[in-house]
């Protein structure tokens, strides 16, 4: 197709110019109009709610070897196709999904839904969806990332190695507004947030984080939060591991200790370092084009594109290496770098057609730098083996190897 199209365009433009000479005004875009019959017939459904082109086939996939849905119809971990991503927003239909244990997706009537705030508060309060929409709102871009989002030697694609993160525009009420409305009592140090799904997924969250920037969201990417993402109400805990972001939010209890729920006990670690790095996500980036599983058509110009994010705030700098990490160039940050949000970066590159390795690293507003696995191992003074598991959320650098035939591979080491 690539070899044929320019000829066809040239032909069409040429003939238009000829006809133009003879007849006068002719639409110069005639080469862009579809061939006869190639159109999407309007129907009521498509007019009411749009659909992507049938030529766009990016889909999510089950993550971590567990089929989703499973034999019971429970939805497990589902990864987003980062290899197809453009911009910084993940479309809601492609946003990654994870649930407590594997859950049914509740079908909640928003008119019936309530959020109760209670526990160590002066005034327990119940909010309807209508109540929440009366309160001052904020709209923010934030990524969410699952703790299971770890690069690995097994991953054949970026979807497998990095697909458990996504970024959306979230709209809702700051949790601090609701907690102030209820009046948190002195002595409270945690909140316990609970979902309405059948397993009532529950996480303990530090009160300091709850008061800082957590969002109780009813909006996602300009429409209501979708059922898989917590309709009609979900919690956003910006920059913290995914499991804190309780969906189908129905209850918040202010308490004076870690409640050690099913979600919580999974957060316990043997080592202090592992525990400390398992809450807030460090600076992380990945090149989304070219990436493993893709095929470059040949040497020449490419805009290397990727995403960078950090639980510690905004991305300040992204560097890209096209020679396996020997030298680094500053990538350009595309658009605004929002705090705790995917940030798009790019670098112009001329590939000479020889085998090479490309990788990216980012620095966030606190000066935290994305490490290699070797740097982490060195910091903790342990030998770097292929089995070495970096402590906490894995934010290490991902390298893609480009073979001389243009095929791109995971170069995990």
């Amino acid at each position, binding site marked *: 197709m690539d070899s044929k199209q320019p000829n066809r365009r040239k032909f069409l433009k040429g003939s238009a110019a000829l006809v133009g000479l003879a007849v006068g005004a002719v639409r110069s875009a005639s080469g862009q109009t579809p061939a006869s019959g190639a159109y999407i017939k309007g129907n009521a459904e498509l007019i009411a709610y749009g659909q992507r082109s049938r030529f766009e086939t990016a889909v999510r996939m089950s993550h971590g070897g567990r089929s989703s849905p499973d*034999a019971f119809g429970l939805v497990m971990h589902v990864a987003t196709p980062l290899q197809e991503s453009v911009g910084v927003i993940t479309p809601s239909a492609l946003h990654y999904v994870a649930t407590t244990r594997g859950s049914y997706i509740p079908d909640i009537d928003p008119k019936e839904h309530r959020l109760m705030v209670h526990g160590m508060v002066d005034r327990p309060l119940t909010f309807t969806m209508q*109540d929440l929409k009366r309160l001052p709102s904020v709209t923010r871009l934030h990524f969410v990332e699952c703790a299971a989002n770890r690069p690995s030697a097994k991953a054949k694609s970026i979807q497998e190695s990095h697909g458990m993160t996504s970024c959306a525009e979230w709209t809702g009420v700051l949790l601090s507004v609701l907690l102030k409305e209820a009046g948190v009592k002195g002595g409270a140090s945690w909140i316990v947030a609970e979902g309405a799904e059948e397993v009532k997924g529950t996480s303990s969250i530090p009160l*300091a984080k709850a008061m800082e920037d957590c969002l109780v969201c009813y909006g996602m990417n300009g429409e209501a939060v979708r059922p898989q993402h917590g309709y009609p109400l979900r919690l956003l805990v910006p920059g913290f591991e995914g499991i804190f972001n309780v969906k189908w939010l129905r209850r918040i209890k202010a308490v004076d200790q870690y409640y050690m729920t099913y979600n919580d*006990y999974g957060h*316990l670690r043997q080592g202090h370092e592992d525990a400390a790095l398992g809450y807030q996500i460090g600076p992380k980036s990945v090149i989304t084009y070219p990436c493993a599983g893709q095929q470059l058509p040949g040497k020449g110009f490419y805009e290397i594109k990727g995403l960078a994010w950090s639980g510690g705030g905004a991305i300040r700098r992204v560097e890209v290496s096209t020679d396996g990490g020997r030298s680094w160039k500053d990538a350009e940050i595309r658009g605004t770098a929002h705090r705790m949000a995917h940030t798009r970066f790019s670098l112009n590159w001329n590939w000479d057609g020889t085998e090479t390795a490309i990788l990216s690293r980012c620095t966030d507003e606190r000066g935290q730098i994305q490490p290699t696995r070797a*740097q982490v191992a060195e*910091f903790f003074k342990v030998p770097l083996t292929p089995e070495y598991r970096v402590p906490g959320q894995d934010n290490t650098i991902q390298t893609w190897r480009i073979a001389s035939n243009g095929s791109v591979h995971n170069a995990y080491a």
Partner: protein
Amino acid sequence: MGAFTMRMLRLLSFVLLLGGFALAQSRPYGVGSTPSEAEIRALDISISPTGKELPPGRGTAQEGAKLYVQKGCAACHGAELKGGPAPNLIRDEPKPGVDPWALGRVLPFRSPYATTVWDFINRGMPLDREGTLTADEVYALTAFLLNKNGVIPEDAVMDAQSLPKVKMPNRDAWAPLPNWKPGMQRLEGYPY
């Protein structure tokens, strides 16, 4: 109306005004309604490690063994608790002295507190019939699973007093949680 009464009325309205102002300050928007005690009790299923919210009731491993079959647990988790369509519920070597960290995530076995097991059964089991187990049944099933995993003897009675006192294998072998504060370093001296 006497001057005294007038003064009192003026004072009263001043106090009311102050009170109203204070109330407005403490509850900025006045949005939301107040749930009744009964409504809170009905929704509040949280169980803390101290067990202070645990309901009255009791159960033993023997009772739990019967319920494990009757309530359909065995159908999904396996008659021997070794899993099936639903996860494995028993560790490989149910004997004391084995490092709980080496055993992976079997049930919430790695939790330092037995209340986690009770809470999870109570809130999330059996699939599709959550919330149908009585408190006695949850105590009995918890006792059964703890006994099968070598944590408590077969005749131990689990109730609101005894359950929080169960010494789980991982009671003391976990790292303290980070005391998260805005802007703090994730780990002292860690540049990444």
